[in-house]
């Protein structure tokens, strides 16, 4: 995924989007939507991820004219908004009968929605789905931290701010999450120091 780029380029995109330029907003959306969607798939489930992503963007659009900050700040803003949508959704779900597990099962049984997709693209998409599913199987706190860091591209301090945890707790949750993933896939080498450093 191509990064929007240096701060000047981001500032230009943000300024045009704030002025109502649809193409600038679309560029921002294309860059951040995949990570947002994957984060929501991990922490909330595939069946609600798209709806929550849409709600998140609606909130972001409303606040966009007043947003000030760089691209990393925007990512924090985006994922903070998404997280609040997840929390709100969880509260709503508590008031309803618990049918989430059934929906997950039905979603798995649903036929593939992309018959035209083939070859390497399909393989990559399936691999991404499988990876997200694995991360989603981690304990809740670990799954969210891994998702924010790996999928959202956020650093340790940003994850700590979004989740309301201490920086040290985030680091521990991430390390344990990576170790658990390694165990799931049978990676005997597990988590190397070099690997962890790459995500510090």
């Amino acid at each position, binding site marked *: *995924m191509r*990064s929007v780029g240096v701060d000047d380029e981001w500032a230009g995109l943000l300024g045009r989007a704030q*002025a*109502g330029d*649809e193409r600038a*907003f*679309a560029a921002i*959306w*294309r*860059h951040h*939507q*995949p*990570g947002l969607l*994957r984060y929501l798939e991990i922490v909330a489930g595939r069946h609600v991820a798209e709806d929550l*992503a*849409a709600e998140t*963007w*609606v*909130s972001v*659009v*409303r606040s966009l*004219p007043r*947003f*000030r*900050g*760089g*691209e*990393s*700040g925007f*990512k*924090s*803003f985006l994922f*903070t908004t998404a997280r*609040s949508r997840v929390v709100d959704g969880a509260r709503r779900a508590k008031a309803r009968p618990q049918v989430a597990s059934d929906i997950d099962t039905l979603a798995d049984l649903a036929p593939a929605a992309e018959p035209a*997709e083939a070859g390497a*693209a399909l393989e*990559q*998409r399936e691999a*991404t789905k*499988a*990876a997200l*599913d*694995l*991360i989603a199987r981690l304990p809740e706190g670990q799954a969210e931290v891994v*998702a924010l860091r*790996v*999928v959202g*591209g956020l*650093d340790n301090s*940003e994850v700590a*701010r979004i989740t309301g945890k201490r920086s040290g707790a985030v680091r521990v949750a991430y390390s344990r999450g*990576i170790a658990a*993933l*390694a165990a799931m*896939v*049978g*990676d005997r080498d*597990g988590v190397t120091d070099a*690997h962890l450093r790459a*995500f510090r």
Partner: protein
Amino acid sequence: MTNAHRTTTFTTVDDVLAAAAAPASPQELGGEAGAVAAFRAAGPAPARRRRGILAGKTAVAAVGALGLLTAGGAAAATGSLPDAAQDAAHEALTKVGVDVPRGKGKGLATAPGQVKQDKGPAEGKGPKADPAQVAPPEAAGAGSGAGSGAGPDTGSGKGATISSIAKDPTLSGVEKGAAVSDAASGGKSHAGQNRGGPPASVPAGPPSSVPAGPPASSPSDTAPGKTTSATAGPKGAPAAPGQGGRP
């Protein structure tokens, strides 16, 4: 997708993380049109929202003006307005093809503005006196008659007194109205004594003057700032370290 498929896809944790952060698929970007449509509908918010508020207030004003015109028109149609107003309504509504009766007074085929200055033979009643409300029908014409005095009569005696005032040929216009009013109120009313008073209300007034328009500087731009996300949104978060961007 089964767990068996998941575990056989990856052999290292690096593979898992790389797949999780892989480039976007077309499906993940399939909602772009909807997102842009939402963006188009929502922003840029301040100007569009202010126009909406103005439009809403204009609609309310229009409804209010319509109601006032309707109420005035109904009163005019039944001939229940004060004579000056009734005549003005007659003049105005006749021009648009609506037939309403004239006032009971004579010679009031003039515009309302002329009524206010009338001191002579037009026989317009004083705007505040409105003796038609207390005087018998024959007094409402105020065209002739004799009489004087405004004693504290009561019951039918007061009616006779007022009638005589109304028929008094020595009085006319505002003076007659004031005398009638004085007699009817037992000397309490001073209506008609101030000849510079405001004109009678005219139901056919322009609608634009009826409602107070909204201020042009409506603080509508505070509306979107009430969202939860807005308060949670960071302002100027520190720059991400080197690995901030997605692969």
